[in-house]
């Protein structure tokens, strides 16, 4: 089999009570990996758009998209990996901050264009938005200070419309 590769799959699905468990159950029941899964209302009432980040070789990814398409409430499945797409994730990171480390942390936050959204005598909570890679990077930079809690949304993604053609 081929090499494992990360794929970002966008799923447009009717918001029925059973649609989300069916999609999640597909991944657990057939042994597919989920790196992240996020879901929210789409542009059309009654529809949700789900962004799934998964990994697998070409055969596995083909099965995932075909099996998703078989779910009755799934209207459209797009593997964004093969075209330019915008991807964002939001993470909240609560990090230990003492008087001596606080300014250093704030420097890192500025470099990543992140934000401090909560402060306490012993902690800072950082809001960071960006690609998964950027979020991973800031978490990596903050880890030495002592991470208390992390809450991440998982990626959301849309295909890019304009690719510079004239």
């Amino acid at each position, binding site marked *: 089999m081929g090499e494992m590769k990360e794929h970002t799959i966008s799923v447009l699905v009717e918001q029925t*009570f*059973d649609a989300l*468990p069916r999609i999640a159950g597909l991944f657990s*029941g057939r042994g597919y990996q989920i790196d992240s899964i996020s879901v929210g209302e789409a542009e059309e009432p009654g529809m949700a758009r789900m962004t799934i980040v998964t990994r697998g070789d070409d*055969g596995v990814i083909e*099965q995932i998209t075909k099996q998703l398409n*078989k779910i*009755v409430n799934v209207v459209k499945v797009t593997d964004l990996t093969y075209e330019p797409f915008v991807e964002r994730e939001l993470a909240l990171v609560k990090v230990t901050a003492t008087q001596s480390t606080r300014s250093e942390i704030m420097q890192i936050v500025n470099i990543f264009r992140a934000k401090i959204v909560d402060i306490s005598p012993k902690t800072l909570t950082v809001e960071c938005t960006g690609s998964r890679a950027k979020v991973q990077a800031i978490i990596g930079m903050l880890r030495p200070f002592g991470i208390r809690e992390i809450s991440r949304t998982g990626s959301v993604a849309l295909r890019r419309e304009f690719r510079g053609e004239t």
Partner: protein
Amino acid sequence: MGMGIETSIGQGDIRTRDHRSPVELEPIYDVSGAEILVRALAEQGVKTLFGIPGGAVLGLADAIGRFGRFRWVLTKHEQGATHAADGYARYSGRVGVVLVTSGPGSTNTVTGIATAYMDSSPIVVLTGQVPLPMVGNDAFQEVDTIGVTRPITKHSFLLRSAGEIAETVRKAFYIAGSGRPGPVVIDMPKDVLAAHADYLPGEPVVVRGYKPKIFGHAHQISRAAERISRSRRPVLYIGGGVVASGASEWVRRLAIEHQIPVTSTLMGLGAFPTDHPLWLGMLGMHGTYAANMAIQMADVIIAVGARFDDRVTGRVADFAPAADIIHIDIDSSVIGRNVQVDIPIVGDARHVLVDLVPLVKTPDSREWLEQIQRWRAEHPLWYDRNSDVLKPQLVIEKLGEITDGEAVIVTDVGQHQMWTAQFYRFKHPRTMITSGGLGTMGFGLPAAIGVAVAQEDGAPRRPIVAIVGDGGFQMTMEELITAAAYRLPVKIFVINNGYLGMVRQWQELFFGRRYVASELFRANPDIARVAESMGALGMRVEHPGEVQEAIEKALAWDRGPVVVDFRVDPRENVFPMVPAGAALHEMIEAKPSEE
């Protein structure tokens, strides 16, 4: 009882009187959800329900009784009801309907639903549920039916209001019966069935996000035709999809007009006549030498409505090494899943073949057919036909002769199932009803009941023979009482070897003859007496010389079910056999008698 279905009881005979009038469905205003559901079922042409009532569906049962146009086949167990509906669907091609109560009623259908799911059989399972406000409270007889059945259903619905019932039923039948068919569950909270709404007869619905692909891609079809036309060693490999889509006639045309030999999976048996010179026999783990060798040597394989299951391919890495594979299936997810496919065609088997067959030019397959004839002559299916001991294959071969392949055969799972696949002379599609994918022991008898009921509902009349083992028979034998109660003409042939025979065979071949927990003879009942006690005719056959007469007597019996206990050689094994992990050509063949 007393549900308005008129019943007369006497001498173990419960018959429901049919006082059906043509269904004219008028709008009805402000009626209960149960009344709406009953009318929505009638809209779908439902004639029969299989199931058992209970607390959560009493109102619905009452509405069914007052409506008076359905027959309710009351089984002994919900598993039996589900297999019966499955058998009904497989034989008639119509959606089978199950009605059970909440909690244990629904969990008892699980094996039946999974069986139907694996073999793509269209059933709709109506399950009772506790009232919506009590859902999640661990109420009496509450279970999360949708959650339990999610991985084994094509789709499921929870009714949330009486106003959505009719539309939901229409969607459920459409989804169950179209595309790659499969089971659909409708979970029905008690308060929703009691709530009132209007019933408006409606048109078939369109389900967004669900559009089965019927026609194949024209370019792919012409590529396939071109490849077949210049093949030298073509093989048609057909499966259950051919039966389900009604493509049997077109498979026959493709094969016979263009001289292409045919092999089939277990599920495809009957789609091609087994007495035709182009017939290779079944392929796979217990396939014939000719079929397996033909696959291994083929230059083109045309797979139609089959899914390259592991029991078919043997060791995948060495499957059909020389072949270009053309794969026709309505479910794109089975294409390219287990083996690499050169020409994929997504579509309904019949529609694709209708487009494909006229484009094919007859390939030059003369040398190939001669080779196949040699394989067939040198490696036929074999058993000791002159034995003094009753051989199981003899029973099946004799049954084939006596019925001339015109019976509908229902099997259970195990050795007898493989012998049936090997030795019965199938001629017609939908005459082999068997649990292929899930391999459900206990399927045979209740599924045969479903076939008998389908015949009463208008499906073609044929003798019905359930071939089962002593192990599987005892898993659902309570349904013999059901068969007797409705005086259904099912002939149950128990191939009784006193063992879980396939387990015994593997223990003999691969586990040093240590027969752990497979020796049923230590506690088997007298099957003929069990049958008599349940209201069926019971017979026992111990010698080869008695077989013919016993089969003729059983087929002639016209007063309900017959059970024949065939006491067969317990040491008989199923050959050829491709051991697990071996390639298809690495078969263990039956030992020829020393002459």
